């Protein structure tokens, strides 16, 4: 066991998979860094995740691109159809708007349209998340939206081990997988197994056991949910915290099992307040386990307006552990 940050774990996982399989290439803006600049050093991505890859594996496998997301995400998709296993980075998920056709129509549907005659081992890495004053176009979380597109797998790690492990599974998957990394977690450190084992797509994790209510939380919200559970314990409320890790396919069995035990569901998620992940889980659970529910499920999501910039406003927009605690208590009293 070693201690490392989420960005270090991702970096290590990149090194591992690229060393093991020379069909894996990495594509994106500034992921090598300094392309065409004389005399400088490798950058390794704006968050350091791809550091050292270019010097180790060469510019042929670590490819800097112009700011042309449509062309290079499409290129990665086409490469995945023809024998390579590209990992392509879209710097922020907010930027996916400019290349959304290549994601929602091309990458998501090509394997289906071929009737599975080719695999599409494409990994799209991106960042997400608010809380650092990045404003309306550098702070969104779009995992719910992306999960609504049939044909895409979407994973949102909350820990260094899961980040590395999900990346390893993504590059080995048959279809396109989007790995969404919360900006606020890159510096988050935790222990990992030395060989950074793969984490199966579609398998969630019980972060903390409890009997009174089930909290489903994603990415950075997992840590808020843990803090909330800790606080709730002091009031005698035992919350079970589940990190689904993969949004699509969702580990429905794990969620149902927990709700059947607790009878109460709270979903805490940074994506859309309307038709987002929280709605998907609440709808699914209510449809599948209505009789087991003892109280109305609760969604803890940001406000249904764009992400504001100013600190006070952003703090109001973004739920905290406190928000979860309050919502959980209300539910227990109901």
């Amino acid at each position, binding site marked *: 066991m070693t201690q490392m940050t989420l960005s270090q774990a991702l970096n290590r996982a990149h090194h591992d998979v690229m060393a093991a399989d020379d069909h894996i290439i990495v594509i994106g803006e500034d992921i090598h860094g300094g392309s065409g600049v004389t005399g400088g050093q490798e950058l390794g991505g704006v968050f350091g995740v791809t550091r050292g890859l270019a010097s180790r594996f060469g510019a042929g496998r670590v490819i800097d*691109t*112009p700011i042309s997301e449509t*062309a290079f995400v499409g290129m990665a998709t086409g490469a995945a*159809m*023809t024998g390579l296993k590209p990992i392509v980075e879209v710097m922020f998920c907010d930027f996916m708007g400019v290349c959304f*056709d290549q994601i929602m129509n091309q990458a998501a549907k*090509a394997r289906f*349209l071929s009737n599975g005659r080719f695999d599409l081992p494409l990994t799209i890495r991106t960042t997400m998340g608010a809380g650092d004053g990045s404003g309306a176009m550098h702070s969104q979380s779009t995992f719910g939206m992306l999960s609504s597109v049939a044909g895409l797998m979407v994973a949102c790690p909350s820990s260094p081990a899961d980040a590395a492990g999900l990346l390893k599974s993504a590059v080995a998957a048959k279809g396109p997988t989007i790995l969404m990394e919360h900006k606020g977690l890159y510096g988050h450190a935790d222990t990992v197994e030395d060989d950074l084992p793969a984490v199966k797509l*579609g398998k969630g994790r019980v972060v903390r056991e409890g009997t009174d209510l089930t909290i489903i939380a994603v990415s950075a919200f997992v840590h808020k949910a843990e803090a909330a559970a800790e606080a709730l314990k002091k009031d005698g409320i035992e919350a079970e915290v589940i990190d689904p890790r993969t949004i699509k*396919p969702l580990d429905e069995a794990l969620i149902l099992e927990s709700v059947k035990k607790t009878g109460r569901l709270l979903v805490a998620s940074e994506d859309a307040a309307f038709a987002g992940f929280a709605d998907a889980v609440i709808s699914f659970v209510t449809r599948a386990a209505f009789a087991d529910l003892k109280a109305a499920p609760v969604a803890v999501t940001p406000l249904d307006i764009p992400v504001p910039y100013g600190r006070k406003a952003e703090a109001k927009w973004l739920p905290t552990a406190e928000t979860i605690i309050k919502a959980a208590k209300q539910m227990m009293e109901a």
Partner: protein
Amino acid sequence: MELEDLTLMFEKAHFIRAFEGALAAASDAGEVPGLVHLSNGAEILELAVASALDLPKDQVTGSHRSHGIALSLGVDPLALACEILGREGGLSEGLGGTQHLIAPESGLLGSNGIVGGQVPLALGAALSAKTLKTGGIAVSYFGDGAANQGAVLESLNLAVVLKLPVLFVCENNGFGQSTASAYAAGGTSLLGRARAFGLAAAHVDGTDPLEATKTAHRLAAWVRDTGSPAFLEASVPRLSGHYHGDAERYRTTDGRSTDPLDRLEGMILSRDVPEGLVEDMKSRAHADALAIVDEATAAPDASDTALEAFMAEAQA
């Protein structure tokens, strides 16, 4: 070109024409699920390009208008017809259909429902060929209308920046749906655009079998040899509507282009050929095409079991 090359092209071109004619008739008879966009007028150009390729090492992506491209590459016509008709035995068992023709085994990586969407994908095929050193190249077809789409413009640049072996083929038929290419494209020429991005570029009259073949071979060889991208703009007529059934109220009937198949016929007839050769070839091509489309039409609707496999996989 040898006479043999010309007659081969003639037979293939008539096969494509007849194949699409039969599809149009099937469509009128309610046998085709969706709208079909016919390649009438582009057959010669597409056969010329195909003749320059090394299939399936080379991989091609096409637009919504790709029946002719598929046949030019040698895609199995029955599987193609079944796909377009949504019948059992289709390339993708009818999951894709007329705008999503996929036959990588013949060199057709895919056609596309989104104008320009296929062009970035071709860069990927080129990147694979380059990285895996297959010796192959990629070809991406798109229309004059698509040349105004961001996906295409970005791709021209990216191909140059990464030095990818890809041949862009812009079929300029003068129209994007009802809108004239001359209206929709600023600047003096699409060639100039491509050159400004740093591409080697050439224009051909896509109705001229000799010039089209020569130029396609030259550019394909250049892409293969240098590993760099090139751009071919080919003028082709759109002999029918945007889709089969388009009333074309926006277009006058006079001033329509002549049929490149007639031009090829004239070239063949101007050589010393046996009496009746041309008519024989035509009727054979037409009979073959008709038989295939008939066979496809008679096949049962593609079953829905393919869906279940995808549902199951999505859950797992």
